Every structure is written in structure tokens, then in C-alpha cells.
């Protein structure tokens, strides 16, 4: 049961669009839809992956954020240089809480900011020399790095520096991969193109490095793709896969290493969690190395069960039994979690607005807790993501693409969800409106949320947020009805 009927939701969209000028209204109307489960394709109902309108408040990032922040940043033994002015690197430094095992500054470099710190003279005379010098300095100071990636910021593309030449020369000198990534922020409409560019750079510079090298294979080798280990997510997923008898060769890219990535072409099956950011490389490996890939979803026990069985279906009976064993082992503890939290969360309505995957992936986890997702939207999804979302969401729910700050607030005011899941940019707006809020990008300093262990944390966090007593104290004192007149107060009279 959706919060509103189909007609009411359609009326709400029209009402919200009313304030825009004619042209903007026409454009934004294409990005909003009322869900209809019967639809096969989202194409006719929603437009996605288009440039945001000038003048509206969008929550999107840039191509650099997609490449450095998402894909390259979490690889722990690769040093990612933010090539350009200092800010981009500083503000994308470990912000996504991609956990890793290692010693920062010795063999792991996720939390550090390496940048060429462009000044005016670098713009005028070019930054290639500085970059070459920087790479040498890095090699001297951090000899345990396994490779270097150069993440271009906007000016590098604008002035036309030849970072590829510098990278090739440095790679020869250092005898390590040095990967130039052309992820200037102005490319594309959102971080999505940055993922694509980063995938392509891995394809061109990393993935074929060990072709023909010896590798001890087992029939149960898999790789986890598109899990960035936010708050330890990939670890919570990995233990389940290992428990069912699979061997996880690589983690892309949370807590991942360069060697793991280079070994990925030897696996039997690629497991793809974040479809939006890593389907490109999966498709490439499917064509070149004949490795099939599947999407899986480790949010909430129902989806985990489904996914474990789906993964096991690619292997022999030993793994299939393993999957059943794992499901059986965790079922009692999951039932206990649901028994504890479901009564406190039953029937609550959730609205989501996250990146490119979680609005549909977390639906199952919320449903396991008896909650209902009444609105969902993506920052940078493409139409194939919406095709998948339509099936997950209930009828007559609201779907919004690249929602603007204004629209999101108005939707929340009308739909009145009990919980919102989105990012840090939205968090305090909704806190001030008195709506419980969880960050679904970084798990609000908590996590993991993937896997069976993660679901227990997920359920606790949702309860902790939703049933927090502070939400009953939102009314300001001057809005409260006065309990008694001040003039009648005996103490005041005495004074």
C-alpha cells in the first residue's frame, strides 16, 4: 500500500512542478514518475542520465568523484594522485569510509591525499614536469606502493597536459603500473561517467598485466566487484561466500589490492554488487576471458538467501549444499533480529535518494523489517537501473531522477515518510524539518550493512533513528501552547 494513490501522486508531481518556468517544468517533468509494476521498460516514463538544469540544487558529483572517490581511491596499495588544484583531493580523502587492513602511509594509502597542488604557473606553463617530479618523490617516500594512478582534475583537461606520456615514462622507470585516468570533472553529467572512465582505465592498464602468467586456480574462484567496503561491507559479504566454499580471489575495490585486480581474469565467476559502477569491466571480462557475471544483493535476509542460491547455481553440488548450510546457519539469528525490531518498525514509510544502486537494493531489507519504501530516486542511474527499480518498488510509489533540493523537500512534506535515507547534503535539511534521517552513502558512521551480520546493524540503526525520543521534542518553545499564563504565576507576581 503506497502512501498516496496513483492520482494523488500524479497531482503531487504536477503541484511541485508548478513553480518552475515553462521550459524547466517541461524538462523536470520527464524525470519524475509514478511507478507502475506492469511496465517492462522505464524508457517511456522516465528520463535519466541527463545534464542537470542550471539553477536547481542537484546533489550530483562529478567524473573525478566517480573515479577517484569510488573506484580508484579504495584500492589500498595504489597511490592515487589528485592531479590539479588541492581541493578536490582533500575533500575526497577517505570520505566514503572505505575500510582496509594495513598501515596507513606504509603499505596502504587510502586515507592520504597526494596532489600536485596546481598554482597559476602550472596552468600557464603546464603541469607535466611537476607530475613527473611528484611521482619520483612518491617513490622515494613510499616505496611500498604497488602502483600509481593519476586522477585528472578539470584544469588538466582544459590546458591539455599529456599525462599519458608522463605515466608511460614513469611506469618504465619505476617498473610499476602508472595509470593515467582522464576523469576531469567536467566530463559527463554526473559521477557515472567517472565510473566508466575508471573502468576503462583498469581495462587498458591493469587487467591484462598477468595474461599468461601462472596462477593456481580452483574451480571455486570468484571475485567481488562493486563492493567498496563502506564500513566493512565487503568483509561481511566475503565471509558468507567463503563459508559456502567459494574462494574470493579479488575485492574490487574496497580493501582491494592491485595484485587482486590483476588476478581477476583467472576467476570462474564475477559477482557484481554495484551494477552501475562496475558493469563495464564485467562485460569486458565476459567477452575477453569468458567469465560470466551476475548481479547479487546482500541487503536483508530474503535477498541474501535469493542471491546465495543464485550464486551457487553456477557451481556444483558442494557449493549448493554450502549455500543451504549458510542460509540455515544464519536463519535463527536473523529471525531473532526481525522479531526484535519488526514490531518497532512495522508499517513505517521510507523515502530513499541515493546514488545508483541502493534505492533498489535496500528495498528488500526494509521489507524484511516490515517497512515500506514509498519513494525512491537515483542521483546518477541510467535507464537500465530504472528498469530494475520498477520491479522492486510498489505500485503508485514515487520515482524521481536527479531530484532537486526543492522537489525533494516538497515531496517529503506531502508524503510525510517516517524515515529518509539519503546523503550528507540532504541530512541536515531534513533533520531541521523534524524527519528522521539515515545516511545511506556512508551508513552514518556505522556499518556494515551487507550480509547477515550487516543486517543486524542495519535493523538496529533504523530503529535507533526512527524511534529516537528527540523527534517528539521538535516543536520550538514559542510554538507550544502556553501551559499557564505567566501573569498568573505567583512567583512573577511576587517579583
Amino acid at each position, binding site marked *: 500500500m503506497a502512501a498516496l494513490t496513483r492520482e494523488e501522486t500524479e497531482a503531487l508531481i504536477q503541484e511541485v512542478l508548478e513553480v518552475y518556468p515553462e521550459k524547466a517544468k517541461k524538462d523536470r517533468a520527464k524525470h519524475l514518475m509514478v511507478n507502475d509494476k506492469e511496465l*517492462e*521498460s522505464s*524508457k517511456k516514463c522516465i528520463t535519466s*542520465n541527463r545534464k542537470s538544469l542550471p539553477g536547481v540544487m542537484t546533489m550530483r558529483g562529478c567524473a573525478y568523484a566517480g573515479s577517484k572517490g569510488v573506484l580508484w581511491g579504495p584500492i589500498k596499495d595504489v597511490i592515487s594522485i589528485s592531479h590539479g588544484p588541492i581541493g578536490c583531493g582533500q575533500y575526497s580523502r577517505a570520505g566514503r569510509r572505505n575500510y582496509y587492513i594495513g598501515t596507513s602511509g606504509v603499505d596502504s594509502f587510502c586515507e592520504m591525499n597526494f596532489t600536485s597542488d596546481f598554482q597559476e604557473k602550472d596552468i600557464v606553463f603546464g603541469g607535466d614536469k611537476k607530475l613527473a617530479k611528484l611521482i619520483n618523490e612518491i617513490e622515494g617516500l613510499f616505496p611500498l606502493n604497488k602502483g600509481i594512478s593519476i586522477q585528472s582534475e578539470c584544469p588538466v583537461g582544459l590546458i591539455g597536459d599529456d599525462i599519458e606520456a608522463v605515466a608511460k615514462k614513469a611506469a618504465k622507470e619505476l617498473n610499476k603500473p602508472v595509470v593515467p585516468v582522464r576523469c576531469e570533472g567536467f566530463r559527463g553529467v554526473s559521477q557515472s561517467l567517472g565510473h*566508466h572512465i575508471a573502468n576503462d582505465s583498469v581495462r587498458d592498464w591493469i587487467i591484462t598485466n598477468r595474461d599468461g602468467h601462472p596462477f593456481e586456480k580452483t574451480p571455486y574462484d570468484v571475485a567481488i566487484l562493486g563492493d567498496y567496503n563502506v564500513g566493512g561491507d565487503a568483509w561481511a559479504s566475503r565471509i558468507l561466500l567463503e563459508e559456502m566454499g567459494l574462494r574470493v580471489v579479488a575485492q574490487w575495490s574496497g580493501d582491494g589490492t592491485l595484485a587482486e585486480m590483476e588476478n581477476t581474469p583467472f576467476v570462474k565467476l564475477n559477482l557484481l554488487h554495484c551494477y552501475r559502477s562496475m558493469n*563495464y569491466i564485467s*562485460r569486458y571480462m*565476459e*567477452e575477453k576471458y*569468458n567469465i560470466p557475471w551476475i548481479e547479487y544483493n546482500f541487503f536483508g535476509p530474503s535477498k541474501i538467501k535469493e542471491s546465495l542460491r543464485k550464486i551457487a547455481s553456477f557451481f556444483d553440488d558442494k557449493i549448493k549444499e554450502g549455500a543451504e548450510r549458510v542460509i540455515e546457519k544464519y536463519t535463527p539469528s536473523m529471525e531473532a533480529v526481525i522479531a526484535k525490531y519488526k514490531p518497532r518498525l512495522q508499517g513505517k514509510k521510507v523515502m530513499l535518494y541515493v546514488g545508483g544502486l541502493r534505492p533498489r537494493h535496500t528495498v528488500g531489507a526494509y521489507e524484511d523489517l516490515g517497512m515500506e519504501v514509498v519513494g525512491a530516486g537515483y542521483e546518477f542511474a*541510467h*535507464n*537500465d537501473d530504472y528498469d530494475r527499480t520498477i520491479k522492486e518498488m510498489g505500485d503508485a510509489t514515487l520515482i524521481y531522477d536527479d531530484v532537486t533540493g526543492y522537489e525533494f523537500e516538497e515531496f517529503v512534506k506531502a508524503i510525510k515518510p517516517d524515515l529518509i535515507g539519503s546523503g550528507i547534503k540532504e541530512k541536515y535539511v531534513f533533520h531541521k524539518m523534524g524527519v528522521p534521517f539515515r545516511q545511506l552513502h556512508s551508513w552514518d558512521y556505522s556499518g556494515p550493512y551487507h550480509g547477515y551480520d550487516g543486517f543486524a546493524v542495519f535493523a538496529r540503526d533504523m530503529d535507533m533513528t526512527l524511534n529516537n525520543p528527540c523527534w517528539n521534542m521538535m516543536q520550538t518553545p514559542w510554538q507550544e501552547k502556553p501551559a499557564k499564563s505567566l501573569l498568573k504565576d505567583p512567583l512573577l507576581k511576587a517579583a
Partner: protein
Amino acid sequence: MANIMIRKSDKGYVFYMPKRDIEDSITSMEFDTPEKWGGEIKLGNGGAYYIEPQVAPERLPYSVRARRIDGVE
């Protein structure tokens, strides 16, 4: 002309264009025999593309050049 990738799913051929991230089912292919493969392909979204008829690829997925005849981008 654009590079596309054709893969096989349990429901038949799937069309994928990396540059624009368009994924769709192929509803019909003009020639689909081991000796002659390709020709005009029709997509689930109403688009149509043309692949130079050729010997069928040994295994899928397979990247190939295709020309847009008609339809949705």
C-alpha cells in the same frame, strides 16, 4: 557507426552499446545461421541497427560495429 556488444541471455540476444549505456533485448535478427549472421537487428525499445552480415562469432559476447538505421537513441 558505433561499437556494440551482443551477448546471450536465457531469453535470446541482448544488445549493449557501451558509449551510451543502452541495454536492450534483440527481438529479431535478419540472419542467424552459423554461416551468415547479422543484418538488420530490431531492439525491444523499437530501435533498429544494421550489422554487416558475417560468419557467426564462435562465442558470445561479441563486439561488433553496427550502424543505426532507425529509432530511439
